[in-house]
């Protein structure tokens, strides 16, 4: 079996609390599982408080409240307050939908440190189309209010073929709204994004053009805005160092209490990811099969085993390997040394063909009826 008890286990630093899968939006690139509706039971306020306390005790310090839309949980202010008391640095990752000024103030008082608002595009039409919900103006208003009330404002835009041509306008919008941080997240193809890949993946030329524009802008605004650029790994020759290494840094808790080494790990077979209802966070992190499964490098196959870069990228992403090759132990096919690299080249070609054809299929929106 994979995993080994000789490996030194480092404590978690980041806790991602996916409070709910409920969301008023329907983004076709949503990273929630396709069958999210089958995991609709949610753990209680008391359970979340215990999770936060236990993870903090082990060393977690960065905390993300996400989902779904975390604002749909009415106990959010109570959880934020608990997090503040414990000394977390907490981040609300929201679509901004339904976030009123009153709520922004209430959360500030409870001790929330910053708010990340996602906007789908720089124009109303496209934003509302992608979100599947009319939301553009309210999102911009929320971004302004976040700023007004002294939070560091983090704007997040997920980039894909439908909006990549708006890069200059997206950057201008971020500047106009006074974003302190701008996350330009090239779509990662898991969950709903995987299902919509042919329609979402930009061509290499589009990526290169957009990246150049973003890089130039980054230099221009360096002293007032920090830009995080999430690279489109399909066009790279090496995979990303996924999760900074399995079970080294990140702990995700799904709405139903399942603990995941990465937020897509639910899709992997036979991991039996543990639930916080049954185990403490320390047991989950240190002893569970799931968290030990891909720790270290012993689980690897060739070409990773004998590769001198294995401590740099850990063989890439396990979920991507599984999704694209059917084998979760395989080298991430993004790697040019992977014997399966052709699946990436085929995916790129297939998306390009779809982009050029004039009868594209419609996007599948994230919606329980669409699965």
């Amino acid at each position, binding site marked *: 079996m994979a995993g080994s008890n000789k490996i030194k286990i480092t404590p978690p630093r980041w806790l991602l609390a996916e409070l709910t899968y409920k969301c008023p939006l329907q983004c076709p690139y949503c990273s929630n599982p396709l069958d999210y509706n089958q995991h609709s039971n949610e753990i209680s306020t008391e359970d979340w408080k215990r999770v936060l306390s236990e993870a903090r005790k082990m060393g977690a*310090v960065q905390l993300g409240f996400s989902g779904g839309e975390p604002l749909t949980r009415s106990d959010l202010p109570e959880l934020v307050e608990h997090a503040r008391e414990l000394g977390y640095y907490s981040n609300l990752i929201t679509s901004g939908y339904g976030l009123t000024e009153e709520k922004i103030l209430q959360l500030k008082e409870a001790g929330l440190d910053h708010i990340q608002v996602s906007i789908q595009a720089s124009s109303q039409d496209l934003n509302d189309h992608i979100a599947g919900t009319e939301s553009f103006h309210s999102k911009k208003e929320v971004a302004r209010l976040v700023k007004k009330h002294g939070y560091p404002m983090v704007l997040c835009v997920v980039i894909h073929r439908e909006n990549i041509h708006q890069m200059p306008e997206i950057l201008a919008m971020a500047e106009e709204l006074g974003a302190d941080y701008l996350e330009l997240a090239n779509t990662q193809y898991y969950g709903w994004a995987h299902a919509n890949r042919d329609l979402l993946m930009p061509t290499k030329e589009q990526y290169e053009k957009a990246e150049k524009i973003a890089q130039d802008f980054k230099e221009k605004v360096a002293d007032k805005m920090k830009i995080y650029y999430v690279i489109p790994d399909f066009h790279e020759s090496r995979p990303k160092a996924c999760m900074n290494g399995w079970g080294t840094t990140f702990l995700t808790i799904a709405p139903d209490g399942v603990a995941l080494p990465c937020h897509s790990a639910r899709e992997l077979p036979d991991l039996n990811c543990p639930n916080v209802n049954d185990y403490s966070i320390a047991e989950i992190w240190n002893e569970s099969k799931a968290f030990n499964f891909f720790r270290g490098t012993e689980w690897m196959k060739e070409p990773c085993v004998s590769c001198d870069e294995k401590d740099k990228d850990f063989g890439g992403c396990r979920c991507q390997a599984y999704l694209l090759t059917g084998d979760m132990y395989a080298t991430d096919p993004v790697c040019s040394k992977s014997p399966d690299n052709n699946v990436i080249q085929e995916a790129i070609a297939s998306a390009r063909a779809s982009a050029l054809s004039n009868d594209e299929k419609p996007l599948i929106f994230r919606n329980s009826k669409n699965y």
Partner: protein
Amino acid sequence: MSINPEEKIQFSPMHRLQWEEAQQKDVILYPEGMVELNQSSAEILKMCDGSRALDKIVSDLEEKFSTTGLKNDIIAFLDVALKNGWIKQN
């Protein structure tokens, strides 16, 4: 951008400086990130509470650690801190 010796220095309201028990270190927290500090950097940043300008920070630290000649190191670090947005001057 470098430190203006005349003006008081304040820790950024957009960041948080905090002692981490699990790491036995002071850290700076900000959106999506964390910087671990060594002891001397942490001591300098704790002096940046908006009540002191450069010379006072130097003299207070020299007094606290019963030493002299810290000025250049402190300036070098404060310039880095300013560039990273950890501290600010009005």
